[in-house]
């Protein structure tokens, strides 16, 4: 056991910290609005220009070939510096690991550099009106068009985060209507500017147009946009959703930085005499939960670099970070007292309403990427081995 980073890693940290301190933009409007999204894309391009957008990727695709440890360090520094949300997240952190695992060389060469450079902006298309927690219930279908060398898509995707602003979506489509629920689906990448695609923005709880519905009406997708084998989409998708629950989507740096801000908020509220003493323990508890997530991640990564996968334990991870995020932001909102309900733009809002916005966002955590009820089933059945029934 050695909890020190190497000199190389520490100098990587120093370089990242210096660059981020000099370049991180502050007070960007939410990336889940049209205007904010464009400004975030500019920031993503700046990150890319300095090769910070996807540090763990090989240099040929736009990364730095950094180790997992360096990736973790970059994430820590990114959030410590107050870096904004990553609107490239669904591409770089969710689709890319799947392309690395299942993609052809041509797909890697085509998609990864444009993704790193924020030239392509990706959203995910898992959910459908009747397929939420029950992902295998999807009905969008792809019909073979041998002549054209591709597939004709029809159906509807929903809860597509930032779908109204992106130009590509990835998701599952039913290619064999006769197959059993989990079979007969294929993982496809679909250009949102293709004929037959309609995107409708949907306003999220916090008022941002963060969701979209994507309607597909005879949309043609060529064979080179199929990721993994035809009818093998379920297995490919499971790789993506596992990334979604685990390490790559939610690095501990994000929660540790939030916990440090919560501690700072406590001190500020204390100084003016408005910190609720009942919340003292809750602040400490939230800080410890973020730290526990960091430590658990260090243990996971120590295993990963030696080739040990965490498997179904990623469901534990998803439950933990989503619930710690709710607890942390709820504690902060309570600490604000009567100002807790004020939002962005309200003259007396503390931190310009960022805590209420973060609280609202945190409430989606136990829902998306597989509800926490489903994750608890997975933990019980696949980690502990309880009978499925």
């Amino acid at each position: 056991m050695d909890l020190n980073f190497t000199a190389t890693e520490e100098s990587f940290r120093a370089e990242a910290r210096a660059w981020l301190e000099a370049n991180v933009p502050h007070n960007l409007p939410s990336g889940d609005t049209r205007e904010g999204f464009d400004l975030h894309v500019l920031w993503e391009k700046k990150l890319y220009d300095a090769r910070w957008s996807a540090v763990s990727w090989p240099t040929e695709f736009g990364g730095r070939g950094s180790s997992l440890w360096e990736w973790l360090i970059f994430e820590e520094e990114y959030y410590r510096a107050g870096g904004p949300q990553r609107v490239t997240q669904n591409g770089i952190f969710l689709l890319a690991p799947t392309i690395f695992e299942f993609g052809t060389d041509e797909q890697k060469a085509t998609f990864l550099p444009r993704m790193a450079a924020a030239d392509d902006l990706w959203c995910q298309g898992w959910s459908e009106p009747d397929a939420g927690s029950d992902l295998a219930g999807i009905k969008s279908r792809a019909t073979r068009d041998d002549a054209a060398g591709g597939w004709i898509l029809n159906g509807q995707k929903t809860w597509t985060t930032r779908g109204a602003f992106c130009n590509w979506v990835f998701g599952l489509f039913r290619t064999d209507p006769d197959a059993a629920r989990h079979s007969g689906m294929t993982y496809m990448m679909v250009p949102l500017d293709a004929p037959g695609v309609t995107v409708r923005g949907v306003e999220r709880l916090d008022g941002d147009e963060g969701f979209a519905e994507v309607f597909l009406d005879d949309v043609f997708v060529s064979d080179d946009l199929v990721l993994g084998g035809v009818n093998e989409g379920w297995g490919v998708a499971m790789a993506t959703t596992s990334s979604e629950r685990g390490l790559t989507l939610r690095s501990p740096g994000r929660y540790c930085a939030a916990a440090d801000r919560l501690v700072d908020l406590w001190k500020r509220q204390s100084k003016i005499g408005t910190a609720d003493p009942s919340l003292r323990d809750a602040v400490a508890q939230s800080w410890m939960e973020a730290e526990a997530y960091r430590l658990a991640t260090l243990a996971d990564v120590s295993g990963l670099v030696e080739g040990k996968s965490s498997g179904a334990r990623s469901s534990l991870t998803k439950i933990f970070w989503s619930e710690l995020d709710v607890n942390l932001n709820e504690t902060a909102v309570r600490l604000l007292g009567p100002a807790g309900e004020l939002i962005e733009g309200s003259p007396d809002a503390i931190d310009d309403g960022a805590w209420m916005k973060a609280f609202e966002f945190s409430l989606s955590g136990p829902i998306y990427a597989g509800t926490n009820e489903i994750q608890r089933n997975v933990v019980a059945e696949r980690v502990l081995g309880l009978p499925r029934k």
Partner: protein
Amino acid sequence: MRFAFTDDQLLFRDTVGELFAKECAPEAVRWSWNDVTGRNPELWAALAEMGVTGLTVPEAHGGMGMNEVDLLPILTEAGRYAFPGPIVETIAVAAPMLAESAPAAIAERWLPGIADGSVIATVALTGQPFVTDAHIADVLLAQRDDRIFAVPAENLRLTPQTSVDGARRLFVAEWDEADAELIASGDEGLRCADRAFNRGAAATAAVLIGLSEQMIATTVAYVSERKQFGVPIGSFQAVKHHLADAELKVSFSRPSVWNAAYSIAHNVPDVDRDVSMAKCFASDAAEVASRKALQCHGAIGYTTEHDLHFWLKRSWALAAAWGDAAWHRRRVAHLLLDQG
């Protein structure tokens, strides 16, 4: 001993509830979010017509001279429909303040108007930096140290604030004592403020019960319809237990709210403790109900296209208003533990 409402009280409540059902459907709440004032004077007039705005105004001033036991069940109906407007401030708090503490001339200036619906009052006690509905109020009842004033609306300087609940309208209100009428001061001022605070807290607790009941009802309806894995999601034990937990919280908060109403109305010695218990429990129940409601709705509940968020956001705001659960739990702890 009879811990129940009379048939008359229930009939009054149901009649007002029917008015809300007709005139304060979710589209009306949505309208309130988007309208400039966000307030529907006709609905207020209808409440006045029914006697609601004058419920706590003494008969001598044109009201019905009723008390909190009559009023709070009606406020629960207001919560059920997420009614936007200063019903707590005007009827539960301001009218009794004026009736109990104000010199006759000041009481006579405002109370008949409250009763007939032509006067809207709002409140700012110490510790309440944001005044609700000041933009449509005719008078602000405000505490400054141990003095209570009535400040006519034309003498207020308002800075609008923005609540997460778009139907709530908050303001910072500045005013000069020279432009205000003194209602009470010294011990009497503090007593007036204490009783006003208890009334606001208990009334808000009653609203929270209605919000919670409605969130549970809406969610029960949704999960009974919504299917995943081929069955209604309401048939999954985890969903059942979420909703049972919410129902448990609300069921054991409700009696404490009625008890607080009784304690205020009869000014029992433990009124502070009873009110704090009610607000503590009602705030906690609303937090649980809102959390479970959103979780059971899933993504659809996380949009503004669905109506659920009106109730969620009102619950968050009111759970914190007039002292949150932690504040009131501490007051109970102080009353129980720091003497004897």
